[in-house]
């Protein structure tokens, strides 16, 4: 039994599929990965779908429908290790913008027969419903971080996924700070690194795709943005994007709502 390849599954809740594709995008590592695991369930990649239980399950997407709730509870029962991937699964995603609005109103406006729509009032992360063993952030996730997480779990070690700011990635890369040298508003100082400082490397401010870092001071950064000429409405919108419902970002956007 000890040498049996671990059974691996990939599930999808409410999401765009981009994070699952990061796994298929890991071309150089994919064959090696497939050599070390049994790909038991991954509808995006294979029509061969084996029944659980599974050793490792990856879940993409947020919980937005009653069906999602049932599915995720079943998935949790079937997976020894449950890892959520991406901003939707870890924070509720961009669709969590509905959490500030009346969803029934939306369904009336969008659908001809809204009575067929069964949806929850809020889009929430998987961890709001079931225990999650590891959350991998990002919109989308970084494929190298995903491979690192899989390597770590397959070797029974802690993943080397830093929870500190994007600023550290910028400095390791030798980037010149866009806030200090260009007065470009940047969420880097409150956002968890992991993207290798993608946007600041192209002279843009960080969009916060990886969500709040381990220890945030969003109000100080918002005050600095105000100093740079941003309005409260603009600041609210900056914090209200892919990780809008992650608590520190949610609170800061609400503080700037009026």
């Amino acid at each position, binding site marked *: 039994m000890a040498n049996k390849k671990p059974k691996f599954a990939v599930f999808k809740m409410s999401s765009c599929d981009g994070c699952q594709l990061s796994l298929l995008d890991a071309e150089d590592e994919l064959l*090696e990965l497939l050599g070390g695991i049994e790909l038991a369930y991954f509808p995006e990649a294979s029509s061969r779908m084996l029944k659980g239980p599974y050793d490792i399950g990856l879940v993409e997407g947020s919980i937005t429908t009653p069906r999602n709730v049932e599915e995720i509870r079943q998935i949790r029962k079937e997976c020894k290790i449950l890892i959520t991937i991406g901003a939707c699964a870890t924070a509720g995603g961009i669709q969590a913008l509905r959490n500030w609005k009346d969803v029934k109103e939306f369904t009336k406006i969008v659908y001809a027969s809204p009575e067929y729509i069964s949806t929850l009032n809020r889009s929430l992360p998987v961890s709001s419903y079931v225990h999650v063993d590891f959350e991998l952030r990002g919109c989308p996730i970084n494929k190298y971080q995903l491979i690192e997480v899989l390597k770590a779990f397959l070797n029974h070690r802690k993943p080397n996924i830093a*929870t*500190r700011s994007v*600023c550290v990635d910028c400095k390791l890369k*030798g980037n010149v*700070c866009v*806030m200090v040298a260009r007065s470009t508003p940047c969420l880097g100082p409150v956002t968890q690194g992991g993207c290798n400082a993608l946007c600041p490397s192209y002279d843009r401010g960080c969009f916060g795709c990886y969500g709040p870092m*381990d220890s945030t*001071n969003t109000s100080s950064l918002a005050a*600095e943005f105000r100093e740079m000429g941003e309005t409260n409405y603009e600041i609210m919108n900056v914090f209200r994007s892919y990780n809008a419902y992650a608590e520190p970002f949610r609170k800061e956007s609400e503080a700037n709502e009026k």
Partner: protein
Amino acid sequence: MKTISKDSLDKIIGYLKYKGYKVIGPSVRDGAIIYDEISCIEDLPAGWGDEQEAGHYRLRKRNDGALFGYAAGPQSWKKFLFPGKLKLWEAEKNSKGFEITPANGQFPKYAFIGVRSCELHAVFIQDKVFNNGMFSDTYYNKIRKNIFIAAVNCAEAGKTCFCVSMKTGPKAEEGYDIALTEIINQDEHYFVVDEGTPKGSELMEQIESLTSTEEQLAAADDALKNAESNMGRTLETDGIKSLLYKNHANTVWDQIAKRCLSCANCTMVCPTCFCSNVEDVTDLSGDHTERWRTWDSCFNLDYSKVAGGNFRTSIKARYRQWMTHKLASWIDQFGISGCVGCGRCITWCPVGIDITKEVSNIRKSLKN
């Protein structure tokens, strides 16, 4: 003292390259003056200066074509001596267990052009950290003993500079192979050169030079005096150790914590901060392992995590730890202050927290 023409600097760079050095110097990139490999005098930031304030940096054009007319930028020489990411060793599983191979067979031979006095002091401080009798860092010391240092005396001070307060400048006093002072008059552009080591003298024998005249030496002195009297900041260091030790409960820390982002920028740009993290990385099979060292920071929650959690969970506790270590407990630990007064932590803090101002805020709070 010798005097060389501006163009002779190009010959110095060429000679160092010929001698097998990887020559590193200042260059303009992405709106700032950074340190990178250079191949000739054209790579230097001719005619560029900078404008610095707390949380603010802009390049500005100079009208005199100075090659070293800028203050300390976002990077320091630390990135070469103590790289941000370094593979320490790798290991391969075999039938008997595993075999370890050291990763750093390559130790580049660097020549640093344009090292400021404060930066030289930062290197001296890191020498005490990485080679202190108890611990010796292999990579640092192998590189350190072979570097060629061409220091440049500061003719101007930046708005966030305070080397005079820290007694680390603006004149490079020791530890260099050659020290240059750039002089630009109406129709002249030359360097006054001081040879600090036999290695420096050996280089200068290859370069066309004249013995400096009284006027030239006076001009070099004036340049330094100009820098010295125009420091943008001052930090009162009298009794600083007991000041910080006695004021760990001061409300100034609460005020700072309201602003501090805990983003770690100050520690990354600091030329003396030396914290690092060591991570082991395996491949998918688990047969191959690598150990990597990366820059870390006392502002990162993971950094001080021990069994049971982190004992500095608040930003207030982490800022206080950083500043108290830098200015006070560093003296107990290494016999020297950890601050060289370069001002980088002030300029590159996204919200402009100013270490000199915070020290004076603590002093002021005691008078009230």
